């Protein structure tokens, strides 16, 4: 290709870049969706684990309280360790639930932005690529240039 056709070459380069960009952005979007799914699953697993620990701790605390109620006055039963464990489990569970709520809210907000962009990517960008090919074709026709792949 001679220098006089450098503009056509540049347009072909732009077209190829747009195609790569469309595929690349699709991959980015898919990886983003995967990451949202993975984090939600991880948080749900952790919430489930802490829920189980909380239930177990509550049962142990209740058992301790029963023993304390039946214990003679001269040998009291100390249940404060069980109470602390229950409180810690409850705090951890609530912390995870707050993150879950925040992620739900932010993922929902992100969904609006992502939806608009992906709509452009799937519906607008192919039209832009076609328009560019038509421009390249008209330039080549005007110069009687035969170019492969255009």
């Amino acid at each position, binding site marked *: 290709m001679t220098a006089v056709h450098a503009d056509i070459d540049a347009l072909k380069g732009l077209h190829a870049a747009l195609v790569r960009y469309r595929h690349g952005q699709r991959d980015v979007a898919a990886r983003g969706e995967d990451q949202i799914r993975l984090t939600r699953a991880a948080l749900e697993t952790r919430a489930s684990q802490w829920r189980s620990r909380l239930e177990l701790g509550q049962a142990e605390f209740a058992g301790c309280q029963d023993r304390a109620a039946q214990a003679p006055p001269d040998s009291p039963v100390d249940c404060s360790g069980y109470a602390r464990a229950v409180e810690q489990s409850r705090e951890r569970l609530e*912390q995870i639930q707050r993150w879950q709520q925040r992620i739900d809210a932010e*993922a929902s907000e992100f969904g609006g932005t*992502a939806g608009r962009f992906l709509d452009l990517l799937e519906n607008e*960008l192919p039209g832009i690529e076609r*328009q560019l090919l038509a421009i390249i074709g008209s330039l080549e026709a005007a110069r009687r240039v035969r170019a492969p792949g255009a």
Partner: protein
Amino acid sequence: MAAEHWRDGQARQFGDGRLAPLLQESRGYLEALRRLMDTLEAAERDTEG
């Protein structure tokens, strides 16, 4: 002639009318994605253990 027409009219129309909105939306999308990824990372870190 075709090249001049492209440079003078079509290029501007193509760049401003078609590419610029796409790139603007793309920047907004990538920035929103980065913020969300930061939140996901912080959530994973903060709820470990």
